[in-house]
């Protein structure tokens, strides 16, 4: 059977491409769409470097036959950084020295994004469990776990600030306060 046309919503953009039978989602992202953040570390689902969000859940994209998820929505690390602005997880990884060789980083960050979307205030044990499918051979994991906890704290703080602004706007009708660029937008986007 020949290659098939596959449609995916990738980082909030509709993308259409051809895929040969049995092509993993990872290969389509990299080879057809040029999205190189997700890496191929084992092609066996054992290392987590290819982790992306598929309809909001982290998956090993090397194990997803792309023809079977036609129409799905996918988020990769390229969709986390918007313009020049790092999100909280990226900032925490950067400032917390949670990267060394960088090969696991994309998968780690996407796993962390999914965790914090579902659980804004995780315990250390919950973070460790969440990233248990992501192998890092450099850091010993300590700085990564610290960075994810730090990102959670940053995000809670930012969301609280955004909610306060929304409350004030709702109470006083001062739309210009709610429209303060940056934080409120980001928080609203995440909650949507």
């Amino acid at each position, binding site marked *: *059977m020949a290659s098939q046309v596959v449609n995916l919503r990738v980082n909030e953009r509709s993308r259409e491409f051809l895929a040969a*039978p*049995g092509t*993993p989602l990872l290969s389509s992202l990299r080879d057809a769409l040029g999205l190189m953040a997700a890496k191929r570390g084992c092609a066996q689902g054992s290392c987590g470097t290819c982790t992306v969000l598929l309809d909001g*859940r982290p998956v*090993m994209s090397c*194990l997803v036959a792309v023809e079977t998820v036609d129409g799905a929505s996918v988020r990769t690390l390229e969709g986390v950084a918007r313009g020049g602005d790092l999100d909280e997880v990226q900032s925490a990884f950067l400032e917390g020295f949670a990267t060394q060789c960088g090969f696991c980083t994309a998968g780690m960050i996407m796993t962390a994004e999914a965790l914090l979307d579902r659980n804004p205030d995780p315990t250390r044990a919950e973070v460790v*469990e*969440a990233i248990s499918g992501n192998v890092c051979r450099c850091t010993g994991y300590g700085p990564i776990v610290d960075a994810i906890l730090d990102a959670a704290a940053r995000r809670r703080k930012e969301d609280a600030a955004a909610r306060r602004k929304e409350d004030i706007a709702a109470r006083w009708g001062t739309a210009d306060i709610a429209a303060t660029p940056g934080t409120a937008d980001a928080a609203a986007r995440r909650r949507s």
Partner: protein
Amino acid sequence: MITAVRTPESVADAVGHAAAGGRLMGGGTVVMAQVNSGSLGSPEIVSLRRAGLGGIGVDGALARVGATATLTEVEESPELAFLRDAVRSVASPTIRNQATVGGNLFVPQPYGDLAVCLLALDATVEVAGPDGSRGAPVDVVLANGVAPGEVVTAVRLAVPAPGTWFYRKAMRRKLNSAAIVAVAAVVETGGGVVTSARIALGGVAPRPVRAASAERVLIGRPLETDVLDEAGRAARADIAPFDDAYASAWYRTRVLPVHLRRAFLG
């Protein structure tokens, strides 16, 4: 090389493709790994992702779990909360988002911890085939698989009464590691002694096995250390352990009684 991936949208179509020789795929955690290493051995894949086999339904103490329900869905099901610890001992949360209940029945040991649980639960496997549907006891499916062209569509199980479910898995790491020994059991007691016991073991044979010898030891006796130790030693008659990167056959045999005891007494 793969020449086709079918994504049938009905069970009948899935059965048709399977009967034509396509290799069935649930979540892809086993099949796609083989595709990537060029070792699948079949040019055609039949994905069950869109065949309508998902979902978990619970009616009183009876549950029906669709073949393509993910391990995450089982983990998050309030009615199947008794299985949560067992499911969380399987792989990583990311893999659990992909791996399916039906697929877990066909994973070689020392993987497939949920299948060990289903064996202890004496589950029934619903199978669709070219000649219609049938229900098959899980032990038969675990031992013999299903016929070519047949598709597992669901698993039915009875939720055990509170206090009768036991699970323990010994692994090299606390998370995301295969079984050295897995123990799953439904054991009922009355008047201080065991009145019925179904114990299943993982990690100690090529497929999940019932520890029938251990069950016989327990019947009519209390769940106490010395009785459980005796049962654990008896269970060595029921296993066919193997060496792998996680543990040697010798070690698995050696520690089986310890973990069987700990499944009940912690």
